[in-house]
């Protein structure tokens, strides 16, 4: 199962990333099992070496920081990491 983490302190961009990630993951066929977690504590965020939020982490791999990737890109990452 995929663990998808959204790193950010709750600003509008962080919420958008969460929405985009959810939309991307839900659109994948065949259905993918995943768990979406919001990480808002700064110490936890920085443990990933992130300085610009929002950031996206899937299965403990840091994939993007400081921007909102395209849905297709998020889906691609999800599929690749799911296969690992």
């Amino acid at each position: 199962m995929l663990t998808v983490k959204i790193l950010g302190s709750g600003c509008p961009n962080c919420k958008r990333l969460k929405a985009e990630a959810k939309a991307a993951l839900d659109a994948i066929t065949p259905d993918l099992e995943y768990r979406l977690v919001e990480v808002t504590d700064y110490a936890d965020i920085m443990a990933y070496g992130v300085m610009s939020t929002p950031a996206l982490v899937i299965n403990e791999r840091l994939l993007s920081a400081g921007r909102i990737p395209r849905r297709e890109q998020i889906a691609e990452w999800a599929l690749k990491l799911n296969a690992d």
Partner: protein
Amino acid sequence: MTERTLTASRAHSDRRAFALVGLAAVVWVIAWSQLQPLADLLSYRVLSLDPESHLGSSVNFFLYDVPKILLLLSGMIFLITLLRTFVTTEQTRRWLGGRREGVGNVLASLLGVITPFCSCSAVPLFIGFVESGIPLGVTFSFLITAPMVNEVALVMLFGMFGWQIAGLYLISGLTLAIVAGIVIGRLNMERYVEDFVYQVRVGSGQVLENRLTWTERFEQALESTREIVGKVWPYVIVGIAIGAGIHGFVPEDAMVDIMGKTAWWSVPAAVVLGVPMYSNAAGVIPIVSALMDKGATLGTVLAFMMSVVALSLPEMVILRRVLKLRLIGAYIVILTVGIVATGYLFNLVM
């Protein structure tokens, strides 16, 4: 979406993206060239206003300036965001690592201008910088220019006053950041940073998927443009409407007594006035331009602008999470003194 369809679509994306952007650029240029003719047509022919009248010239000014500023904003924000996709905070941190006072402050101020910055990132960024051993003063130089010398302010200044004024804002912002950063560094206030900052273990963040494709860069630029213009356009309209009103109706020199050179208290007053006003650059500048038309001096007006943008309560609240009260206090005092000094300087020199 399956894996196969995703990789296939990527190949076509970039070329198509370039074509679309090229087309948009052409449309932009055509629109730009037709601004005044269109404004004239609408105000003098369609609305049949008299060009000599107050109302006529106000409306004409409004109809010309609103689309002009909006076009300028969209175009330049798109370009600037595009350029910024080549710079990341992590890179900035690496560039600044190990620099000392002086050189470090200058570099940090410059980087603050070009590094993309969102106030929600202020805290992680601050922690990250401090953790990598970047001196406190240097970090502050970055934190001052990042929100203050932002692309919206520069673009609007350029659009309404020309490149000289925009350049002056840029240079005085940089100077302010460098000097303030050095002063803060000298004060040795490291212990006024919240303790947890020094305890945070910053991970290496190596595993970052980097190489953005052109399509992704264009998309980010478009998204950023949409977001900013979408947030800012009501302010632009109101600001220019007020400016147009003043332009057409307020008699010359009405503001001289209040904001002109002879009133020594005008600079501090302008700064104090700017503090409770947390606005983005867009809303303030058109008003400011019309005021200048009527006799307010450049220094006072610049001080006002910087105060509105830099001495912002929301950002101080955010920074409170990582800075103890005394350090925030020092930061505010130093910035205020710097802004007031800048205001006086420009009033004297201009």
